[in-house]
């Protein structure tokens, strides 16, 4: 049994952590938060160069061909550094979808560019508020032309292409749409976490190229989102761990009543509970990593488990990190709010916590029924 990363994977983690400490300090995150740019282009190029973007993409498509465990390791570091780059959209979702269901031509056209950071992809399922579902998809493709609106679309403002769920005949299929083509309008959306951009995409007869079988769209999208959920859970884990560290460090440095505030049980026990949440999340994420890398039948349950646990942990740690910091934690100048924003934004990505809670139990009970039958 080995529920841990290998020594090589740990070396990779250390290398990426050092890289991000240098290239993505909080000031770099703030530049995106406060500036006009929707992402940190130089950092993204650097990650491509380092092989991060292509780590799980096969060599034949320009990737490094390492695997998904390495991608999990990288995701944790990106989350820890709050990296303001479109890795989730482009790699966890778009590249993953192409690898799962793309045609040879589609893969050849886009995967090398994604791995090289020369193109950004995004994934557009949601149409407005509430839980995503196949029934809610109103976007429609007729004669290879897409019409309809998708919002919010993470990184929709900067992507080169988009994978869109749309109706085609009776069912929902996925389509690849070049966003530089005619019939596409993008509108940036204001969000609680401007370090990860969101947009509304309006399509009016944009050229659309189907990915995967007709009517298979929802099924493929669910599989892709399960895989991406595990990677996002690692980002959440990285964020939770860093928020815990920040709180711990402040509790050691800050004095009140002549004592380090970490010597007060109210603070000490708050941090202990953050540690508990982060540790449970780490163990559940490792379970997810195992399922993702081994294509296990448990993948859907493992994805929901990792996601629920990591969402809960990151929200808990980010919120209480502010509380440990007291008034300073609520200033723009301290970094606490950067983690709080990201924690609450990631909690909604690919569907909110309550959605994943419901999915987890639905899947566990289905599995249980099968096992009993």
């Amino acid at each position, binding site marked *: 049994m080995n529920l841990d990363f290998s020594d090589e994977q740990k070396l990779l983690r250390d290398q990426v952590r050092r890289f991000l400490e240098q290239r993505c300090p909080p000031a770099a995150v703030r530049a995106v938060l406060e500036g006009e740019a929707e992402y940190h282009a130089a950092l993204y190029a650097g990650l491509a160069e380092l092989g991060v973007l292509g780590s799980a993409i096969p060599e034949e498509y320009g990737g490094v061909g390492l695997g998904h465990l390495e991608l999990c390791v990288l995701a944790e570091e990106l989350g820890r550094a709050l990296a303001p780059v479109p890795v989730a959209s482009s790699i966890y979702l778009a590249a993953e979808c192409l690898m799962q269901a793309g045609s040879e031509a589609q893969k050849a056209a886009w995967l090398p560019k994604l791995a090289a950071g020369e193109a950004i992809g995004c994934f557009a399922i949601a149409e407005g*508020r509430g839980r995503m579902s196949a029934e809610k998809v109103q976007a429609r493709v007729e004669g290879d032309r897409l019409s309809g609106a998708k919002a*919010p679309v993470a990184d929709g403002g900067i992507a080169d292409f988009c994978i869109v769920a749309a109706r085609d005949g009776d069912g929902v299929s996925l389509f690849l749409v070049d966003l530089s083509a005619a019939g596409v309008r993008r509108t940036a959306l204001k969000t*609680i976490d401007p370090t990860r951009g969101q947009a509304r995409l309006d399509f009016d007869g944009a050229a659309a190229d189907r990915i995967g079988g007709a009517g298979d769209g929802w099924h493929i999208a669910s599989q892709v989102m399960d895989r991406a959920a595990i990677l996002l859970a690692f980002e959440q884990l990285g964020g939770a761990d860093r928020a815990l560290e920040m709180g711990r460090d402040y509790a050691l440095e800050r004095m009140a009543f002549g004592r380090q505030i970490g010597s007060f049980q109210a*603070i000490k026990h708050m941090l202990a509970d953050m540690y508990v949440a982060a540790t449970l999340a780490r163990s559940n994420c490792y379970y997810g990593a195992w399922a993702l890398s081994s294509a296990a039948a448990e993948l859907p349950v493992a994805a929901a488990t990792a996601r629920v646990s990591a969402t809960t942990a990151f929200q808990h740690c980010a919120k209480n990190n502010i509380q440990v910091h007291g008034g300073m934690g609520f200033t*723009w100048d301290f970094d606490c709010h950067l983690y709080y924003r990201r924690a609450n934004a990631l909690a909604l990505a690919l569907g909110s916590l309550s959605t994943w809670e419901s999915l987890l139990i639905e899947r566990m009970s289905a599995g249980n029924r099968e096992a009993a039958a």
Partner: protein
Amino acid sequence: MDFNDTPEEAAFRAEVRAWIDANAPKHLEPELRRASFASSGLVSEDPVTAGKAWQKKKAAAGWACLHWPKEYGGAARSPIERVIWSQEEGPYASLSGIFIIGHGMCGPTVMAWASEDQKQARLPPLASGEEIWCQLFSEPASGSDLAGLRTRAVKADDGSGDWIVNGQKIWTSGAQHSDWGLLIARTDPDVPKHRGLTMFFLSMHSPGVKVVPIKQANGASGFNEVYFTDVRIPDAQRLGEVGQGWQVSLTTLMNERLSIGAGMSTGFPDVFRYCMEAEIDGRPAVEDANVRSKLAQFAVRESGLRYTGMRAISALSKGETPGPENSIGKLVAGATMQELAMFALDLQGEAGVVWDEDSPQNGRFQSVLMRSPATRIEGGSDEILRNIIGERVLGLPGDIRVDKDLPFREIPTSGRRKG
């Protein structure tokens, strides 16, 4: 048990209602109804100008500072009359938000500790809204531990008796509009920390006072830093004796927590309304068992706070002093606000991340999400409030104090890392 006024209360309420009906700036009502914690909601007019105008009108008609004595510009009304007034003033009360600190905290402190001349000079213009006051207590290195403050006041060496102040204050609401400030400073660092403090008030227009707004995590700037560089304060503006500042500050703080906690809402009604509109899998969210369970727990906290407030009013109405129950207000409301915001965003799904005017209720839940962490800290953190409940309400012992008898300058000021 009933929710009705006594005949006297009903008569007073009718009088108030008639006056407000005839005098309130009704064109501002829709905006004011959008007021939220720490914002008047006003956008079409300058909140300070509008606030001063409303206060002046109230003062002229005898409706300013209901709980103050008449000789200082107040109306000498009973506590229950004050409650009725505030119920009737409704959304217009937020116009007077800029005076809360002055009327609720600084004024009572001046009243208790200043000379009669100073009281005559300063209180009436505060009551009538001509002058705005702020409270200069917290410092970057002393939040919950207020008595650890470091701003220094030393006697001028010119024999004037004046004091020279240097240092920095933080979290000062309204400093940018204020004419006067209530300032606590350290006058003796060689005695234990509570004993070396002295209280003053000073003109915020004094040379050497610099106000810098603090940008908050949510992007707004409700608070300020205030820097003092060789600021001169006449000794006549000292409140209480030299070294007695801590006792003086208790007058102020006693009022602060009361005014922050009382009658707070958790924001539940907005979220409930949203759950009536939103859908889960094609059915009203309010029919979902998970939504119901969570909403029910929020609902009983909201109503629990509401009826706790009414129990306090009942006590006032009978001439009694309300019990300590109100101390739970901010503790419950702060945490619940934050949970409610996360809950409301969860219902919005992926779109919950979007924060614009098209978001449900104009993005209110996103705003609350980003503002509520401050509520759990300002005016007494959750941890300080639990200590207060534990010690003052339940009678439990205080925390062990290591700094109690140390001279201030020997108290350690930074945590050393182990190892």
